[in-house]
């Protein structure tokens, strides 16, 4: 069972896009739109090596946030949430490591299976790393009204268990 509030899990399950923010070495927040994949415990995302600056930032500072804010990308849901967590990049083999998340990915973007069949056309696009985020805090705005303070949820252990890299 996840400690995450169910409405936020539903947002994650519905979201076609989340805005992942990572922190650059000079403290600048860098935001990238990505498809969030929720496995019930962790948020998974994949990034091509073509767009790998975010991966370098995460390797230098694992603290990230994910914003679920656009009702259009959330299947019409008006709620909003920001998830803060610790990210890890899995890129031992960029050719195949990411394929384990393909079923979750294809469920949100079915056309990716067609693109994958034509892998020869975009070979570098399908050299990918997995970004795995363990949530530690959730800010939740029911109805999406950010002029009201968000509901805050913390990982029950305070400090989520970190996986060995």
């Amino acid at each position, binding site marked *: 069972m996840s400690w995450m509030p169910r409405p936020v899990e539903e947002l994650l399950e519905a979201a076609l896009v989340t805005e992942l923010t990572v922190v650059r070495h000079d403290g600048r*927040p860098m935001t990238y739109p990505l498809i969030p994949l929720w496995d019930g415990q962790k948020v998974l995302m994949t990034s091509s090596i073509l767009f790998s600056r975010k991966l370098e930032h995460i390797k230098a500072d694992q603290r990230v946030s994910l914003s679920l804010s656009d009702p259009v990308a959330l299947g019409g849901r008006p709620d909003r949430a920001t998830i803060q967590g610790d990210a890890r990049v899995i890129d031992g083999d960029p050719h195949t490591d990411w394929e384990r998340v393909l079923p979750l990915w294809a469920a949100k973007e079915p056309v990716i299976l067609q693109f994958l069949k034509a892998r020869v056309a975009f070979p570098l696009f399908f050299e990918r790393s997995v970004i795995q985020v363990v949530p530690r805090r959730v800010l939740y705005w029911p109805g999406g009204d950010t002029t009201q303070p968000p509901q805050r949820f913390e990982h029950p252990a305070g400090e989520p268990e970190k996986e060995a890299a």
Partner: protein
Amino acid sequence: MVDLRAGVQMIEPAAGLARLAQFPFQLLTWVAEDGYPVSAAIEADVDAAAGTVSFLPPAGFALPLDGELSLTGSHIRPQPGVGYDERRHVTVWGRASATAAERISFRAHAAWGWDESDIPFPEYVERQVGQSRRYLARLSGELGRTVRPRLSLGWLILRSTRLPFLSATFVPVLVGIAIAALHGFFEPLTALITLVGAAAAHLAINVTNDVFDARLGADEKNVNPTQYSGGSRVIQYGLVSLRAMALIAAGCYAVTIAAGLLLLWLRPSPELLGIGVVGVLIGLFYTAPPLKLVYRGLGEIAVALGFGPLMLLGAYVVQSGGPIAVEPIVASLPIALLVALILYANEVPDRSGDERAGKLTLPVRLPKPTVISLYYALALAAFAIIGGGVLAGVLPIPALVALLPLPLALRVRDGLTAHYDQPYALMGYLGVNVKLHLYVGGLLLAAYLAVLAVAALAPGVPLFLWR
């Protein structure tokens, strides 16, 4: 100098704000004291001209007024059952200060973003190739082993040699063999060796072209490749090393030369020797120094000669044992023109990169109206030669069937006119242009096969005018 492979360029803050204003809400992001980023949606008033934004801060937070904040706009359009499209996002960085009425004033100083309607995804990908190389180099260092992008062997062979373009070889060789057969010369073994040798020559030329374009920088400078233009890019992507490609080219040339020598041994003739030597030289010096024919605007002529008369007459001469007739020469001309037009049209989307690399192809040298007019004139000339050849009694009457694809030439001309500066919109028309050559050549071949069949089954039926 702009590094085209350094990724998408930062944009001016004012331009970033102008884009930001188009989103229905903005995502305010900052880094909190504990080092974690925080994001909250706001609705901002954007004054792009002044470079400022004002907004009510999200409730429940103390914004850091001494640090850098960002505002992001992000949009997609869901496509049920597919995924989404209309991808665009922009992030503007700046510093905030409190103003009266609890509003925050934000002054922008940097911006970055991508809008796929401005930069199509394939180009966006190309611009990031340098980043992928840097990342893999760092990853290799981290892991203590070399990490390279990969493709399965089959895909790699297909991509690195551009195998599907072999139709440009099969058409003239098979037509040459068919004409020879009609003239009473046909020997299956030498026909097969001709086909293998010609295919190897074509692949050698393709790979050699990539090797020299990589060394001379033409492919590196092209960020608008399509499946018909811009080379195989296996070297740029790190899929195959320059050395390995050079070895593949050498291997293909070795097969070509071996096939040529074998044919000379089986069917010795000075005509075949001459055609073989000229063919190898044109293939090699198409991109290779010192001639670099394609860099001097002579690529189309070289391709026309190589994949027209040389291939067709070579195949014919192997069968005939030497003498060259008028008929194969005339039959080779439309094929030569149409294959040259494949290269010519493919050079249109490549012309910016080609110009940067000093590759002065015809589309680089000529203005748009001339390029299109020349395309159309040469395409019509190809069809005129077929019609004229039949009327003159040189080509068989059934060859008139090869006039049927003429409307495809009109489509390509119209596509060039409408999408001259849009490489990805043009891609479909470049495909039609490849089909134009394939269909005309294929129908010409079919006509000769029909003539062979009729000649065998009903010898008295007239198949040529005036004969």
